[in-house]
Structures are given as C-alpha cells and as structure tokens.
C-alpha cells in the first residue's frame, strides 16, 4: 500500500513496532473524548466519516481501540470502519511523527523539479511517503497540489511553507525541526 515499506530492514520494522506501541499507550484517546465526537455528529448522514476525521484531526492517527469504540457506539461493523479508514489517504492507522513533512508533487511542482526534491528529503530522513521515522521525529507525505503553484517546488512542514526550495537547501531547513 505505501511505497518503500518493503525496503525496511527487520530491525527497523521491529523498532517501529515498539515505538508504535509506546505511542499507542500514550496517545489512545479516552472514551469520553471519542463519545463526545460521536455525539456531535449523531444523526448526520455521513457521520461515520466525520467522526473518523475528527478523531484523526485531534489524535493525528486512528488507534484500534478508538475504531472499536466507534464501531460499538455507532453500531457499524468494524470491517466497514476499516474499509473506510484504509480507503482514504488522510486516515493513518499508525502513529504520526512530531513533524509532518509534505512535499508537493502536483503537476506544476513536478515540472519544476519536485521529484529530485522528494528524493533528497527521503534520503535525508530515511523514510518514504506515508511513513514515520522510527524516532517519531518526522512523517512524510506527498500532496498532489497544495494550490500554491507559484511557490513550487515546495515542502510544507507543520503547515509552514518553504517555497522555491532547491534540493541543496533541504538539510538546512530540516535542522530547525527536532
């Protein structure tokens, strides 16, 4: 599903699994917060998607426990929730890093060299799109047009745009994000 995953060594995978579990313990939302979100959207036509989105936006990923709670409260089979949670790229079933890097790979950025930019970012942080680094420092995503074509190629880190950026300057920019 996510590019590059197969390339990770077993050690890195294990490390990721452990880090992931630690994060799960820390970041699992309590039932009250989930119930509050569910109640807010109760009765809406597409409440399931809205609920999942809100959990994703508050918690940055969807822990299994949260999905089970949603399934129970909304009386929707867990398989259907998983169908939706795995269909959309926005939903993450694994924890996200402290900093989210977004490399715009829209068509305009592409012809302005976004491919080389993405390669550089991947080389520097050691993960591919859709992945989170084992130390949970970075998550990497690609976006198909962030609507700022005049600034391309660009990367966006935690919402801050770094525009018309050359591959050679990426390392400098990343230094500021611990």
């Amino acid at each position: 599903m996510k590019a590059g995953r197969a390339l990770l060594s077993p050690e890195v995978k294990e490390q990721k699994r452990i880090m992931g579990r630690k994060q799960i313990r820390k970041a699992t939302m309590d039932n009250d917060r989930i119930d509050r979100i569910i109640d807010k959207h109760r009765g809406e036509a597409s409440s399931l998607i809205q609920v999942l989105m809100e959990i994703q936006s508050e918690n940055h990923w969807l822990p299994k426990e949260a999905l089970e709670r949603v399934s129970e409260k909304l009386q929707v089979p867990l398989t259907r929730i998983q169908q939706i949670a795995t269909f959309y790229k926005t939903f993450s079933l694994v924890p996200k890093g402290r900093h989210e890097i977004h490399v715009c790979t829209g068509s305009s950025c592409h012809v302005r060299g976004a491919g080389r930019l993405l390669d550089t970012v991947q080389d520097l942080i050691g993960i591919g799109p859709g992945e989170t680094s084992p130390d949970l420092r970075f998550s990497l995503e690609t976006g198909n047009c962030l609507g700022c074509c005049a600034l391309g190629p660009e990367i966006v880190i935690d919402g801050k745009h770094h525009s018309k950026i050359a591959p050679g300057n990426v390392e400098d920019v990343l230094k500021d994000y611990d």
Partner: protein
Amino acid sequence: MPRINSPAELEEYRKGILSKRDPDKPCIAICAGTGCLALGNDRVISAFEEEIKKQSLGAKVDIRATGCHGFCEKGPIVVIYPEEICYIEATPGDVPEIVSQTVVGKKVIDRLIYTDPGTGEKAAHQPEIPFYKNQMRNIISSNTKIDPKSIDDYLAIGGYSALSKALFKMKPEQVLEEVKKANLRGRGGGGFPAGLKWETARNAPGEEKYVIVNGHEGEPGAFMDRAIFTGNPHSVLEGLIIGAYAIGSRQGFIYTRHDTHQLKNHIDIALAKAEEYGLLGKNILGSGFDFHVEVHLDIGIFVSGESSALMRSIEGKNPEPRPKYIRTSVSGIWERPTNLNNVETWANVPQIINKGSQWYAGIGTERSKGTKLISLSGNIVNTGVVEVPFGTTLREIVYDIGGGIPNGKKLKAVHFGGPMGGSIPESLLDTPLDFDELAKLGAPIGAGGMLVLDEDVSMVDVIRYFLDFLANESCGKCVPCREGIRQMLKIVTRISDGKGREGDIERLEEISEVTGAASLCALGKTASDPLLSSLRYFRDEYEANIK
C-alpha cells in the same frame, strides 16, 4: 442582526451599508489567498494593523484581508484603494513606508510597483499591470473588493440582488430558461450545458431533490475554484440557492476539501451569516421558499470528485463511482434527483440572472459562453489565477497574461485538464480557448488547469507522472482501470528510462483502448487521454527511447 424579510428590506439594508461607507476612504486590501498566505502575508497583515494603530489612523483607514487576487507569482499583493495602487512582494518591513507615503501621503513608492521584465515599463495601478489588463475578470474581480468573512461587504457590491430578483420577479421556469439561453456550460470538466442538467433534475419524478456544489478540485495544478470559494463564498452560495429554486430543491450540499482550513472556515461563516440574514434556511427573504445547506468534506482521494462517487460519499459510503445508465440528475443521492455543478459554474449564475442571458451570451465564442477561470502553472513567468473570455487564444494567455516562459526557454506544449487531459504542441498555440475546439485537438479544458511546459520537459516523463498519479488514485473497483493504468505506467516508465522495447507503443494503444472501454467512471475512461494526446503530437519522443 434582524432577519431580512422582503426584497424592499434587502435594498434598504444595502442602502444603509453603503451610506455608512465613504468610497474615498483609504482601504488597504491585502491578499490572503493560499499563495500569499504561504508567502507569509499574515505577518504583513499584522504589520499593517500595528502601523495603523501606531499612527492613530484606525478611524481613517480600513484594512481588509481579501481572497486571492490571482497574481500569486508576485505575492504578497497589497492594493491601496481608492487609487488601486498595487504593491507586489510586500514584506512587513515595507509597511511603515506604505502607510505614511501612500495611504497618508498619496505618493507611489516606486520600488514596490510592478515592472515589466520585458519592456521595463512600470505599472502603479492594478488594472495597468499586463497580467490583469489582458483579462476579463467578471467573477474573480470581486475578490479584491470584499472581506470573504463579511456578508455586508458582499451586499455592498450588490450581493444577493440576483437571488431577490429570481425569487420575486421570476418563476422557476424563467430562471431555468435564462440559464439555458445563456448557454452556461459546466466548468468542472465535461462542459455539459448546466441548464439542460437543471431541467432534467427539475422534471425528474420525486418530491425530494438535491443540489450540490462540487468544490473538490482534486486535479493537480488547479486552484481557481479554491480562489473563488475562499475569496467570495457568498457568490457561490447565491448561485446555488437560485439553482435550487429553479430545480425545486430544498436541500443542498457543499462538498469540498478538508485540507484547506481557511476555505472551510469561510464557507461555514457564509452559511451562518446567510441564515442569520434570512437569505438561507426557512422562508428565504419572506418568499416562502425554504432551502438548507450541509457541508461535507472530502478526505483526500481524487476519485471522490467524480459526481457519482461524491454522492456516495455524502451518503456516508466509500466514494466509489457507480454506473450512470440512469443520470444522477434523475437518480443521485439516495436515488433521488440530484443536480451537481462545480464552484465556478454556480458562481456564474448570479451574474446571468442580474445582467441577463443576452449579455452573458455576448461574451465568448459561438458554443462556449462567458469567461473561464484558468489556473496557470508550470514553466511560466506569471503563475496565478486568470479569468479570460472564451475565444482568447492560448498564445495570449501564455504570453500577454502569463508573461511567457522563464529563463529564456522555448515553449514546448500546453497541457489542459490534468491527469485526464491532454497536451497540445506550440504549433497549435493560436487555438482559441473553447470547450469544443480544444476537445477536438485532444486537450479538453477540464476544470481549467493549464500547465505550461518548456523545451526541457520530457513529454514521456510528464505522461509517466500522470499515470503514476492515477495508478495511486484509482479506487480499484474496475479491474481494467486498476490494472490497465498500472501496466501502462510500467511501459511508460520503461520508455522514460530509455529502455523501451519494440512494440511498446502499440501495446500502450491496445491497453488504453480496453481501459477506456471497460471502466465505469471518467477516471478509467479518460486515464489514457494524456498518453494518447502525447502519442499524437510527440510520438518521436517515445520512439527515440525505444531500442
């Protein structure tokens, strides 16, 4: 704010707003569109607020954070009214000087105005800048004049007068007739006549009918719908309510992107304010017409912008397209008649009602009427949102408005319609912007993303890029789409790497034929369009990479 209960009350309220506004009062309009925001214009806005406070000018000067002005390339853009002095690439450091020199002293600061890189000519006022001068900004020009969060600003420029006219002076059939006569064609990609679509939904059996604004805009390189919807949300809403009245719908949906916070925020404010003013909800303007709107968000998949998939998403299901043997205008959301148009199409409606179909049909070509918003991007000097009448040649867009190709490079091709569009070579640049003319050449306008490619770009690589995009975005329901795109991508990647084999081009043509014929929705049906158009005009680039 008390509800407005009649057209007379609306006009009275409008007069009240205008009487409190002095057209000669200086106003600093700062672009807060996506591009300028990313360039740090929030710091420019705060700097203006501080400076105005410091110089105690609060009562004498207005500050307005507006929607996209279009000239993203030179952002952050600051326009000083009433003179319309336009400063480009403004920084917080420029602010004290702008306030004392221009706002107070009425003098133009030479170093902040636009200089034409070709002729060296300077332009101090916004309408004089070639980028703006060569456009016809019927829709997007309002962006600079209003704060998107202020319904009063929209009313001050005549907002909701078309709604009032439609509800009180026209029957639903007349509204429909007017839109049909204007020959408004859908701006989302298909170019289907909106009036005919409305008529089908209106005549379809069933009491409950729905109308939708498709604000998904998932096409890479397209950002014009966001520019209108974020910058002037009431114009889209007004169009939608008028459409609902003509069709006989009482429930509307807005489907838009989740990843642009500002957009969602402005839509929410617009809906709440319109409801508070009695322009939305029960008994609109006292006419007896009820209409409600719900907002739904896409969560990051391209195919959910496809109409039938979008409707599934509103129903709370996975956005997988479904067959359209029965049109969605007859059987859409929950199998009820549903009329879907995109943001730009709806935004055209109020001006058609206000100025009439005859006026509207006077703009454009024989079969493509009105203006079209274009997102100009790629290897172009002036990236930005452009609005031109249909019939403008592509050459005029690229050179007169776009300022040509950067770094002295030559133009190779212009690509329309994103991953499902097509490219045309430089030799056809005098083609007019027209739904049918461009479709004939294999490069349908699509939603209006216009990607300019210079001589260094490999067409094979561009096609590889689009196929890669679609391979990731195919929902997987139809095997020919899911597997066909993947196989085409494999072959094109091989060719792009210089390892093409004898027979590859023929195989590509064969797969594209099957994928197109055997996929349900437009994604699969038109996935190979860019490939086929590039084989039509740039076949030699493929052949050069085949051993």
